[in-house]
Each structure stands twice: as C-alpha cells, then as structure tokens.
C-alpha cells in the first residue's frame, strides 16, 4: 500500500515537470519568433529573475500567497467534484470584508483575515445551496455571483467614505485606503499583516508572513482531505454522488459545505493580498484576475493541496520573471507559457502511462542484473503501477 502511494506521487510529479519543461521550451520558441535578437537574454531573465535578488524573491512570495489560496480554493472544489469558477468573486468579497474589518471597525489584521474568510464563505455558500437544493449548475451560479459580488463591493466601498484613499490624505478616490499611510497608521496600527523582520531580511517592503499563513492553510486542508472522515466523505461525493448517498453520506450537505469551504479559502486569499499594506483595491468594472489564476495553479498540482504550494510558487516565480521580459516582449507571454503547460498537463493521462512504463522497465532491468537499487520486488511495483 505504501509504495503504491509513493508511485502515484512520483508519477504525477514527473508528469507535471515534463509539462513544465515542454511549456518552457515552447515559451523560448515564442520569444524567438517574436524577437529573435533578445530571445536568449529574455529567456534568461524569465528563468532567473525570481532568484536574482532578495527583493525579487520577496515579490515571488508576496504574490504566491493569494495565488496559493485561490488555487487551493479551486483544488478543494475539484477534489469534491465541483468546479469553482467563482474564486474571483469570493476573493473580491473576502478582500472587501477584510478591508471593512480593519478600516470601519478598526480591527487588527487577523480579525480582518477571519472576516475575509467569512466573506468568501458566504459567497461560496450560495452556489452550494443553489446546486444542492435547486439543481442549478454551480458553474453558472458562480459566474453570475462573480459579477454581483464585484458590483456590490464597488457600490459598498463608494458609499463608505472611510474606505476610500482620499479619506486618508491621498487625492485618488478610485481605490481603497493605503493601510501604511501615516494618517491611517495612527488610526489603526495593526491593520497590516506583520512582517516579522522578514522585510529587513529580504530587503523588501513586499515581504510579510502571508505566504506562511497560506502554506499553513494548505497543510491543514491536506490533513482534512486525507486524514479525516469528513474529507473522505467529501472526496467520495466527488467520485460518485449516488454511491456515497447509498453509503449513507449526505451528499447535499457535503456539496454545500465543500463550496463554502472553497469560498472561504479564496476569501482568505483576498484578505492576505489586500491587508499586506502594499496593495490597494482599485474600483474597476472587470473581474480580478487573481481568482482565475487559481485555476491553473490547482490544475498544475493535480488538485493536491501540498502540490498547490509548489505550483503557486512556480506560477508566481515565472510571473515575476515575466515582468523582466518587458519592454522587449509583452509580459503576457507568461500567460501563454502557463496556458501551454496546462494544456500539456491535460495530456498527463497519456504521459503518466508512459512514465509508469519507463519506471517499470528500469526496475525490471535492475532486478534482472541483481542490482541493489530497487527497494521492492519488481512484481509488487508492477501491481502498484497498474492500479493507477
């Protein structure tokens, strides 16, 4: 049993890495096509900028925190057989609740985060209820409520004078208060997520403990999914709703709970980003991209909560690298590369079969030669692989 699980992880991971490698090669070809003279230096920038300086590294961590949360949100819903395309709306409402907490109610940052979680959960609850009780497809409800949430948040912020930046000495009123402005600091000094000296360590204002909070949540979600009865029930509903109903699992309750938790995760993401002190919510009439970026993060990790940590870091890393591509290329090349990686990972079924075969052949060869390398007999490994 143990080595079966080992193989699954290994094979999934290898498939993802192959997708990433192929996607990056594709990206290099794109750079060649669009502007051959800068292709090598551009690709070098793309691949190394994230580690080039501690400031850039801080930026990677900073962006990866909300990405990880929205990715986790989508992944959690996927695991339970639901497609949460509403992460962007939940993220927006979470951001609003969190900001409202620290601005209107002068709460400390962690209370803001909890409020953000509540906001996201509320918006996740709606598609869950609509699906469970009224048989309305969760995708359509989520899409509708993305827009409703966006407009409701903009409407509310416009009608809360304290929330806007111009209440705190700034001139612009198209965005929320700057939490680090001196006037606001005097009003609520605990509004931003603590930096715990990390900003000094990495020499960047962007660094705070947000990414560690996100990683902690990911670990908790992994434990819930894999080590608790509740998680087992949720996954069972995802695999086969009718079978789980038959086994005495309340599928309707689980659909509602799973969408609510998924929404809560995205809501924390909104809180983490907008309570950082370095971001201000801008009032625009288009949906925030962060929620949609959670989808590739989840897919790249095959919806594994621990995998999501790495895929969020990776996506954030090459996004920081993408900024360094400008001005020779537009930074959207990054999105093309990520899209290519996701598209390739859709072939993972094919790829996993192929990797499993290779793995198997190597192990067989090794045992035939009497090598000490394989830890377990080949035939056992074979049954493990076939069980995929």
């Amino acid at each position, binding site marked *: 049993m143990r080595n079966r699980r080992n193989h699954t992880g290994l094979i999934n991971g290898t498939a993802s890495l192959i997708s990433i490698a192929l996607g990056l090669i594709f990206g290099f070809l794109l750079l060649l096509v669009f502007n051959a003279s800068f292709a090598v230096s551009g690709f070098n920038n793309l691949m190394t900028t994230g580690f080039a300086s501690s400031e850039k590294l801080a930026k990677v961590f900073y962006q990866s925190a909300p990405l990880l949360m929205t990715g986790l949100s989508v992944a959690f819903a996927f695991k339970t057989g639901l497609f949460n395309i509403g992460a962007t709306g939940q993220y927006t409402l979470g951001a609003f609740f969190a900001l409202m907490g620290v601005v209107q109610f002068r709460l400390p940052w962690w209370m803001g985060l909890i409020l953000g979680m509540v906001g996201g959960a509320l918006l996740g609850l709606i598609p869950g209820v*609509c699906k469970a009780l009224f048989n309305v497809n969760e995708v359509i409800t989520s899409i509708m409520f993305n827009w409703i949430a966006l407009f409701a948040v903009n409407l509310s912020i416009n009608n809360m004078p304290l929330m806007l930046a111009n209440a705190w000495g700034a001139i612009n009123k198209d965005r929320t208060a700057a939490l680090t402005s001196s006037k606001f600091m005097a009003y609520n000094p605990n509004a931003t997520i603590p930096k715990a000296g990390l900003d000094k360590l990495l020499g960047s204002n962007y660094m705070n403990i947000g990414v560690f909070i996100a990683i902690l949540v990911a670990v908790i979600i992994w434990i819930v999914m894999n080590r608790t009865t509740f998680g087992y029930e949720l996954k069972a509903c995802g695999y086969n709703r009718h079978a789980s109903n038959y086994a005495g699992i309340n599928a309707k309750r689980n659909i509602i709970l799973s969408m609510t938790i998924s929404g809560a995760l995205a809501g924390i993401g909104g809180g983490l980003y907008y309570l950082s002190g370095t971001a201000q919510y801008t009032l625009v009439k288009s949906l925030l991209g962060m929620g949609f970026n959670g989808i*590739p993060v989840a897919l790249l990790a095959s919806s594994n909560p621990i995998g999501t940590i790495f895929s969020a870091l990776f996506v954030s890393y090459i996004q920081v690298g993408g900024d360094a591509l400008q001005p020779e290329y537009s930074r959207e090349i990054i999105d093309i590369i990520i899209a290519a990686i996701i598209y390739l990972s859709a072939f993972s079924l094919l790829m996993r079969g192929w990797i499993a075969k290779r793995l198997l052949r190597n192990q067989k060869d090794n045992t035939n030669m009497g090598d000490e390398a394989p830890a377990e007999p080949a035939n056992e490994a074979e049954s493990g692989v076939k069980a995929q």
Partner: protein
Amino acid sequence: MTGNVIADILSGTILFAVPLLLVALGGMFSERSGVINIALEGIMVIGALFSCLFLRMVDASGFGPAHPQLSVFFAILAAALSGVLFSLLLAFASIRLKADQTIGGTALNMLAPAFAIVLTWAIQGQGQTTILIPNWVRITQANFGVTAGSGFLERFFFKSFFMTTPIAFLLLIAAIVVLYKTRLGLRLRACGEHPQAADSVGINVYKMRYLGVGISGFLGGIGGFAFTVAAGSGFQSSVAGYGFLALAVMIFGNWKPLNILGASLFFALFKIIGSYAGSIPFLPQFNGVKSSEYIYLMLPYIVTMIVLILTSKKSRAPKSEGIPYDKGGR
C-alpha cells in the same frame, strides 16, 4: 422622447443578444455531442482578434471603405475559421487524448487573450493594445440608398445595425434545422446522450464530437466578432466574460436553440435596462446613494439567477457530457 428610449433599448437588446445567442448555440452543439466547452471565452477572443485584424488590413488597403459590407462578410468568415481552428485544440485534447475537458478549456481561455495581446503588440507596436474598428462596418440608411430619418423604426433598425445580426438569425434557423431535422443532428445528439449506443449502430462518436466542437468554434468565433462590434470601443484582447455568460445562457436555455434565443434576449434586455436606467422614467433612481449605477449593473445577473432557481427543476444536461468516450470502455 420615450419612444426614442424604447427604440434604443430594443435595438440595444438585439445588439447584445446576438453574441450571446451565437456563442451559446455553439456551446450547445459542443455539449450536445458530449464535450463540455468551457473554452468559449477563448474562442470568442480568437474570432474577434482575427476578424478585427482583417478589418484593419482591408481598411488600410482601401478595399474596405470601397466594399464595406463585403469586407465585413469576409471578416465574419475569418472569425469563424479562426474559431474552428482554435477549437480543434480543445477537440484534439478532449477527444483524441481523452484529457479532462475542463483543463483543456481553461488552458485555451488563458491562452487566447494572452496570444491576442502579444500579437496585437507585435503588429501595432508596443502598448497599442486596441485594434480600432473602422466606422464603415456599421450598416446605415445610406447603404440602402435611403435618406436618414429619425423616427421610431429608423432608430430601432439603424442605431446600431451590423451584418452580424441578420447572419445570427440565419444561423439560428440553420442550427434548429441541423439539430432536429437532419440525420447528422440526431447522430450528434445521440453521442452526447449515450455514445456507446451510438457507436453500436455504426456512428463514429469521435467524428461527431469533432464536428460538435468545430461548430462551437465556428459560432463562437463569429460571436466574438459580434461582441466586439456591439461593444463599440474596438478590440482590446478581451470579450469581458461574455463567453462565460454564454455558457450560462446555454444552461439557462436548457441546451435547446429556441430557449437559448429566449434566454439571450432576456439577459440582454436586462443588461440594457441596467445601462439605460438613468433615462427610464418609472425606475427608481436611488439619488441618495453614491455610484448607484452599480445597482442596475447587477440587475441582469440577479434576475437570471432568480429565473434559474425557479425553472431549474426542468434543467437537464446531455447525459454523457464531460466524459471522454473510450471505445473499449463499458
């Protein structure tokens, strides 16, 4: 005055219903054949991109201003063809490679706008993210040799009239005929309901699904162009979520062409009422609230949700959508 507002609302409703109708019909063909097409948004972007690039090209060459409606027709063809080609990426992954259809679709949705921005930059120069639509694209009274009037009917027909509207109407009729009156339509529907049964009577399920996705690319591409001319401000590498809305309209329309027509008109009407709310006398104006326009912007989404909840008992998706067909499977 009120007559003018009503004429504007009606013509605006049709203008915005057209892209929703086309794209939702496309989604319907794909899902009826058994493939969930979440990539409609991306397909729209690609269709809009290539048709707008085409218009830009013929505008510069002088062919466009000389033969405006012929050029628009070719632009629509460009949109349709590019949509088909792009949708084949989804078809290949989800039919031939049996990949998860949501994953492939998400990748394409991400790819399309990024590709559009990169290509627009490469063609127009850095930072030039908008492809302007030439003003000869709109059909005016002058095209019919009539002098411009300003009565109710003139306003209704010519305020915002583009070739995409009559074409959408023809395509709707074609869609109904193909889906319900031809052998092809019956086979296509069978593949979305019970592919094994379809296969057992000699229908090539893979071919039917390629066809379903291809049609969705065709209609989705044209829909992307229709959205861009309706939005009016040129192509900015985005279709503002209309592909996802079309997906909602398709579900709202219960995967049936005429219901989809009704659903898209319904949604578009409330959207237009939302944006004209200030000039409609009998609607409350919320004068005490700042930025009250947001209240009416929410309107179409809220109304659609209410109707969906009320009518959802009858909602029924094609039975085998989203499940890759495996000839050897049981």
